[in-house]
């Protein structure tokens, strides 16, 4: 009797800090036994016709199990566990299976053909304390992929062994929100495809599932599309700083195979000056001075939305981009349009007069036209929140709104009954706090100061101010990097590990597996989320992602000793 009670306590105890899972699964029971992987450990799939991308994922994990050298963050590192590892039972096999009667499809197909709210990412992973057989069960290959990501990112290394300290382990997991993204600006400064792929790898390890690709902006147009190759030829920073059609396809495929959807944003009608390098006829107030009057940042320039030619150009541009893109979502952007730009543009004024339109009507029509192209191609359209809240444009009912200016705007979007994703500048902007990049503003700080710490992002409540009836409108959220002050040189450092904070907010949701609130007392204590996030950071560095240190290593090795009140 005493023994039984004791075991129950072990199994029901809150997840231990030595179990560094991120995002923390929604259902988790863990023990205290050490188990290691057998030297002959292998991963088997219990069904035929294994899709190639699932097989590739298995191979990547087997490679990681050989190449990872991350040792547990404890004083003495792995040697602290040497004795228990020596005595531990060995897991010989992980078997993957699908529940009965599901169609076996590639991971990529689950991602790029199924709507964001209709995917099944759930899985059950068990690792016995004394047996030899670990199991992973899911309803889809995508679910298996998520379970594999958990398995991939949980082992400690020491002296040639891979082990955990918390067997038996049973994880019953599924995301709280279907959309968990990263918004990536590749216009202000360019990033090679290799950087994007490394970022996708890291995203997949923390179960992020959308790359929202802000591919072009006023400064550069690196996107090569068949209909208008001159846009990149003249609007990219150089011939080497172009995403060719094969680059785009390669990135989308790479992402999809890792359970990640690519939502390309063609930000329109503002943020389009670079189009004027090849097509000046479509751009109003091109590089007009003073830029502060005509745009939020230099250079000024917006599509001539009142011009039928320009609308047709935009529609063709969207269609040509869509032809490159697998997936069920796309965005037309729409942030920060500037009215003086159009009001002083003779071509725009003439077109408005000819059409007997106001600029607001022209904007409304423009948005409907580009949304129409996306809709006709089966893409759920996304749009930036100011289009809806400030310009009151007509959008399709299935539009997803990107709420960005302030977290407080979410309520207003919800009141319109539209689905949305959270991208609030006051919580999630990874670029804030590095000073003003505009010249001749000597003591200027960034417009969205201060720096958004991981703790700040982690404290975000997706349901804040929403009624229960409105909660279903929240698809999830994404942290963005705007690249005015970022490039290949600091991508990893400015993104990681902070981006992982957003991953847990939207995967785990409000409740930890032990039933306590995620944002309970001391959520960011070194013994709670901070300990697990330190682990994420060291694991990323071990795999070549240059994530910044969150603390002195002394603190990372001693969870809780560097808390404000410790």
């Amino acid at each position: 009797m005493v023994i039984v009670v004791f075991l129950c306590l072990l199994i029901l105890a809150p997840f231990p800090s030595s179990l560094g899972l991120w995002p923390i699964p929604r259902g988790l029971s863990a023990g205290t036994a050490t188990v290691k992987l057998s030297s002959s450990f292998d991963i088997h799939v219990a069904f035929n016709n294994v899709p190639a991308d699932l097989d590739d994922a298995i191979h990547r994990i087997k490679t990681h199990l050989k190449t990872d050298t991350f040792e547990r963050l404890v004083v003495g590192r792995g040697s602290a566990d040497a004795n228990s590892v020596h005595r531990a039972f060995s897991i010989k096999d992980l078997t993957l299976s699908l529940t009965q009667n599901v169609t076996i499809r590639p991971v990529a197909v689950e991602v790029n053909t199924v709507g964001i709210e209709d995917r099944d990412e759930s899985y059950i992973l068990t690792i016995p304390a004394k047996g030899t057989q670990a199991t992973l069960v899911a309803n889809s290959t995508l679910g298996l992929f998520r379970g594999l990501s958990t398995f991939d990112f949980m082992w400690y290394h020491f002296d040639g062994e891979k082990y955990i300290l918390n067997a038996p382990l049973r994880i019953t997991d599924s995301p709280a929100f279907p959309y968990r993204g990263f918004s990536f600006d590749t216009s202000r400064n360019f990033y090679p495809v290799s950087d994007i792929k490394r970022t996708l790898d890291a995203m997949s390890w923390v179960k992020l599932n959308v790359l929202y690709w802000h591919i072009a902006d006023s400064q550069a147009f690196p996107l090569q599309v068949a209909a208008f190759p001159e846009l990149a030829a003249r609007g990219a920073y150089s011939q080497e700083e172009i995403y060719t059609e094969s680059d785009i396809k390669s990135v989308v495929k790479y992402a999809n195979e890792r359970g990640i959807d690519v939502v390309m944003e063609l930000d329109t009608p503002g943020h389009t000056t670079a189009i004027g390098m090849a097509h000046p006829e479509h751009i109003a107030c091109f590089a007009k001075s003073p830029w502060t009057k005509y745009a939020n940042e230099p250079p000024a320039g917006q599509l001539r939305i009142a011009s039928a030619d320009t609308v047709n150009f935009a529609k063709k541009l969207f269609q040509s981009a869509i032809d490159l893109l697998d997936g069920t979502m796309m965005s037309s952007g729409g942030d920060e349009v500037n009215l003086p730009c159009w009001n002083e543009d003779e071509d725009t004024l003439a077109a408005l007069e000819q059409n007997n339109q106001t600029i607001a009507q022209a904007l409304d029509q423009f948005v409907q036209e580009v949304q129409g192209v996306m809709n006709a191609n089966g893409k759920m359209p996304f749009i930036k929140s100011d289009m809806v809240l400030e310009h009151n444009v007509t959008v399709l009912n299935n539009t997803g709104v990107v709420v960005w200016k302030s977290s407080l705007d979410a309520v207003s979007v919800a009141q319109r009954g539209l689905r949305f994703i959270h991208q609030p500048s006051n919580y999630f902007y990874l670029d804030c706090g590095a000073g003003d990049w505009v010249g001749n503003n000597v003591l200027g700080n960034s417009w969205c100061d201060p720096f958004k710490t991981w703790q700040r992002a982690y404290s975000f409540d997706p349901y804040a101010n929403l009624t229960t009836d409105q909660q279903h409108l929240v698809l999830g959220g994404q942290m963005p990097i705007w690249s005015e002050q970022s490039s290949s040189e600091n991508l990893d450092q400015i993104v990681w590990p902070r981006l992982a904070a957003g991953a847990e907010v939207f995967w785990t949701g409000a409740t930890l597996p032990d039933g306590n609130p995620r944002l309970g007392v001391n959520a960011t204590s070194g013994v709670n989320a901070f300990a697990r996030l330190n682990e994420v950071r060291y694991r990323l560095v071990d795999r070549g992602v240059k994530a910044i240190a969150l603390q002195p290593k002394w603190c990372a090795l001693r969870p809780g000793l560097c808390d404000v009140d410790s």
Partner: protein
Amino acid sequence: MRLVTLPVVFTALLATPTTVLALWPIPKTLQTGSTPLKLSSNFKININIPHAPSDLHAAVQRTITHLKTDNLQRLVKDRGAADLKAIHQHTTHTLSSLTLSLSGSHTSAAAAVTSIAEEAVKPIGTRSEGYTVHVPADGSPATITANSTLGLFRGLTTFEQLWYTSAGGQVYTLESPVEITDFPSVPDGVDLGKPYRGLMLDTSRNFFPVKDIKRTLDAMSMAKINTLHWHATDSQSFPLQIPGFTEISAMGAYGPDMVFTPSDIKDIVSYAGERGIDVVVEIDTPGHTAIISESHPEHIACLQAVPWSDFANEPPAGQLRLASPATANFTADLLSAAAKLFASSLFSTGGDELNSNCYVHDAETQKMLNATGRTLEQALDAFTQTTHGALRKLGKTPVVWEEMVLDHNVTLSNDTVVMVWISSMNAAAVAKKNFRIVHAPSDFFYLDCGAGEWIGADPTGNSWCDPFKTWQKSYTFDPLANISAANAHLVLGGEQLLWAEQSSPANLDSIVWPRAASSAEVFWTGATLPDGSPRAINGAAGALPRLHDLRYRMVQRGINAIPLQPHWCAVRPGVCDLTA
């Protein structure tokens, strides 16, 4: 093939400013022409100096390599494509050689010439870093002349920054002839060779391998920064392996692979010296020493006392038992053994953030104080005299943080160098006490500020020294603010600093560069540009275009310096100004 059609002839709507001569720091005097000049593919550098030291030969070889491999295209909209026309004119001359020579008494000296490394570690005030560069427009040999090999090295650094590379691989300038007479500014305008232009790196909170330090030294030398202030140890780890005290790093480093051995240190010191950089090591005492307890618990008071905030400015708590003669002697011996590993005339004993409450609650310390009838301040004074006395025996001049002068009654010799960090406002008070000053103010120069709180369970915490210190903020620093003319001679210079609680090799380059070059120009160029106008930040003729150039050149050399603006702005000087 990416480029398929070019349908529309594009007319440039934006005026391209004239070329920017991308020198950083900008020389004290500078005259340039507007004649294109090519660099020969067989370009040679002749050292017209008998018995030239090997580190000068090595520096010349590096310059030759940089000229070949920098491959930096000019930061204009077309990246120099239009320059090809100018440089491929048949009338354009080619520069085939550069001659280095020493001026004055050195020219005929039969004795061996002092090496760059030896010059770099001479006491502040006795170094000669000035030089002249002459690049004729007609292709006749260029010259660099200086009074020392260190000056020649500074001249080579400048020479490297004169050149761009075209898309076809031609190295060229559009601005010959070039005449530069340059030397570091001095705040009081008198004492040549005095300025201290530094970068501080903390290798304790998180560890940095030797290769990261060397890459940083390379970057520093590009901006003529002449001092690495190496905050080597702290409470979190003790990576310095010191002969006679190897147990401290054996037990106090983060791991056996996170130790600087004596040979690592020698390697760093010589690498720095060859690049004109003095390595001033700091072993911070008596605070910031908790980790020494791993091997010597007998010397540490209030070890990991909780709550740590009562006993230290950051965890873990723990300070040397300064009232104990055994601890004072141990510390003096430790510092002496460490000092012998370094060539510099300066050695920092730190002294910041001493927590008196730690000692109030330490029974050992109280027992010592009671036994000797001394106050804590008296004990600190005795402790400091013991450690500084030991360093002086080795010919070292002590460096301390400002609290040792402003907050404590410690007897310090007049030549002690005091680093002002808490606030730029405190420099005047240090000057009034007649100590020499290095500016290291947190409100201008801390590179780590603004990245949020690293302490746990503080969900809304920002960094204590918010906001982020932009390059512009650092660039506006006035070394003589609030300091009387009579005290101006006390200002040695200054440094930007990286405290490494949230930094590691993963982000070293990106958090340091190019921001740390800001103070390099503040302390080299001083308040006045070569044309006599005050230093300005922005506009096509301001500092930003030149700092972009330094950043892009650093990236070409493998230093991951961050972009300061979208590339669109970098190739259009002035167009992204607030007022443009």
